[in-house]
């Protein structure tokens, strides 16, 4: 027997032991994931996506950015995260998306340091922290001071008190998956830097499923009858930031948006 084979067998034997142990304690648990005090998956931690969803949710080739920034500002190519490939826009809405892209340098809410909305906050290229309490779950994002409260403690989801950038979120556990219903959006947020967008009729159902200690499979189903012909879904992994000192640093980007927004009103105009 080769050493390699011996190692494989040893590993297989270990696996059998582990499986038999878990089978007796928790039949429903197919994957070993960290769990919190009440047995639900423990999502506490600092997480971040890797990819180009924040550039464009759909398949996209590379493209040019702001000429002053050279290659730094260029759009990197990326594979889409939309199930089935394309976002099912209504024809008139697709035109709006194209207009958004054409005017993205000044109109993208991200450029203005506006709150990114849902699901965009999830896959912006910044870490975010989940604080999983026994009443509510707080998500603190690394951009524009955006944050969300996922109300786990409301038996009957209440209508959103007002329309907002981040919406109102109610959560529940579906087995080992945290399911969040988010609605009550203001209708001005975009989904990415490509100008993909939704209206105030947007409703997002998110599913957070731990696939192990260090990854969450994130799925978001997007429903907005005024912009899309049918609901559509994106999915991507969220990775745990493993650095020992990982944290969400304060990034108050307002001051970096002020020239864009108010430069023409300076005594010495910059725009």
């Amino acid at each position, binding site marked *: 027997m080769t050493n390699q084979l011996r190692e494989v067998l040893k590993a297989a034997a270990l696996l059998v032991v582990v499986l038999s142990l878990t089978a007796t304690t928790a039949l429903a648990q197919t994957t070993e994931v960290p769990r919190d005090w009440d047995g639900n998956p423990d999502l*506490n931690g600092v997480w971040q996506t890797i990819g180009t969803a924040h550039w464009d949710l759909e398949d996209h080739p590379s493209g040019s950015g702001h000429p002053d920034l050279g290659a730094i500002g260029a759009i990197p190519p990326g594979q889409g995260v939309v199930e089935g490939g394309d976002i099912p826009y209504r024809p008139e809405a697709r035109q709006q998306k194209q207009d958004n892209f054409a005017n993205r340098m000044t109109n993208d809410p991200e450029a203005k340091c*506006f709150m990114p909305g849902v699901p965009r906050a999830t896959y912006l290229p910044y870490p975010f922290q989940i604080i999983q309490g026994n009443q509510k779950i707080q998500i603190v994002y690394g951009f524009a001071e955006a944050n969300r409260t996922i109300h786990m403690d409301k038996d009957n989801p209440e209508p959103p008190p007002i329309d907002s950038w981040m919406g109102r979120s109610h959560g529940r556990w579906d087995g080992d998956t945290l399911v969040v219903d988010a609605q009550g959006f203001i209708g001005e947020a975009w989904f990415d830097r490509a100008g993909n967008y939704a209206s105030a009729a947007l409703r997002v159902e998110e599913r957070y499923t731990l696939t192990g200690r260090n990854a969450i499979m994130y799925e978001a189903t997007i429903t907005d009858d005024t912009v899309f012909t049918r609901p559509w879904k994106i999915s991507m992994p969220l990775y745990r930031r493993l650095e020992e000192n990982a*944290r969400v640093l304060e990034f108050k980007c307002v001051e970096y948006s002020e020239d864009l927004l108010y430069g023409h009103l300076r005594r010495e105009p910059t725009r």
Partner: protein
Amino acid sequence: MKRTTSRATVALVTLGLLATTRDIVLETAAADADYHHVHITSFAPPVSVRWYTEHLDCQPIADRDDAADCQGVEVTFVPQPTSGGTQGTGVNHIGFSYADLTAKMAELEAVGSRGSGVRLQRFEDGSTLREAPGLFKYGFIFDPWGTRIELVEDSEYLGFHHIHLSSTDPEATLAWYQDVFGGETASMRGRLEGLLYGDIWLLASQHLEGVPAPTEGRAIDHLGFVVDNLDNAANDMRRTGVEFQQEPRVPENARTSSKRAFIYGPDNVRLAVVEPGFAGVETDRGTETATDTGPYDSPQTPWGEPDIQGIWTGNAAHGIPLERPLDLVDVENLTADQAAARREGGTLGSIWGYEREWRDTTLGYDKNAPSTQVAMIIDPPDGRLPEMTATGKRTAEAAARARALYTENRSAGPEDLTPYVRCITRGLPGMMMPSIYNNGLQITQGPGFVAIQKEMIHETRVIPTEERTPLGDKLKMYLGDPQGHWEGNSLVVETKNFNGKTNYRGSGADMTLTERFTRTAENRLEYQFTVNDQTIWTQPWTGVFTFNLDNDQYDLVEYACHEGNYGMFNILSGARALDKERAEGPR
């Protein structure tokens, strides 16, 4: 049953080992809703709740150990000294109605007077029930605190049934009540004249011996009437010569935010007139001084840390100045009226303040009585900021010059405006301070972390409670680098690495901020903050105020400050217009 639509409150009050006093509140005709409540004195409210639940078929109320729901009428028991039962006063008894009084009385007779049981009043022939010709069966019992209770069999009005006054001139007395409080003249089965408030009868009989004793201090201390607008009602009452024992105000340390006044009705009956504070919602407010009830045993999270989670507001604390006003050097606490006026001036008095009704209802401002605390600073003991260093004074002068650019509309660009105006941050400890609106503070905990979200501007601090490597010197931020730990039930947070772009009363980048969050009662979170910035001040200084819990009603709204900052466009375009005018001279 008509009672199902009515909301009435009966409150029983107790203190020490003394007996029961209560006040009964009816609504006025002007209010035209059927809202009533009764306060009753009892030495142990939970015992009284049990008694009224067991013997008069009232229901306990969730989360309240001082109140019972008596067939739609809320009965609240409040600790208060009493000096005797109801008989002999101008309020002889209250009445409850049962469909089968014979069965009810048999049940009560079986209980007897064992322990804090039921005392029955027997008629001369030893019976407990009689038939009032043309009316119904009736009998009397007493509660353990001296309240005489008539039980009747009136199928038309079941449950809490009536209040029976004892008067030297019953007809004039009922006329007085109708004049002052409204109420509908009605005849009970054509036999007994009275007033109906909703579906509760107010009846009056001839007082037999002399003049009724004052109700004040007795088992039923007073009756209460609810009005929509107490100030208007009080003006009307003054015009008709009503004597006020206490002018309208929100009582200090009251259980509810209701504004109330006390007046005297005929026959020495003390009457409360109440304006519901917040859409009729009553909320426990706790006491003003956190320490007067001894140490509070804080709840724990499931993972074993003190639990300070919830939605808190700084509404009660709004208006407390940081420094002790010089004219209040020897004042320990403001009066409730002074406190109310101070806060009112700080909210409605400001052009920034929201409209009153929205403030009081949506924000629930009135649910928390304004704090009577004179000032926030407790150290130095004189309540004043310590002396500044030479650097501190120079910095303060520069800050004043910068502010003038704003106040004189000369801002060259956004940088001349404060980070608050720019919707960046209020800094620390500024962001924790009570503001004129959007005072919500939501705390969520996970193992090892406390997230503190402030509604104003929308900022969230994530504080680790387990030690972590602090940030290096090059990494400075508006809200700094916090490190928390638990000391007993207190969350202690030390924050450094400020970028110095904000200042609180002069504080700068060298500040170390130490905060203590201590839950001193179920609904109170004491917040103590110590500013140590030796570049600016010659010594550290400490302030304190309290947040109040409002989980039931308050939800933080998203304060999308920057996203809707039209003020920036207006301020800067105004400054440019003035630039032009200054350059060209006035036309």
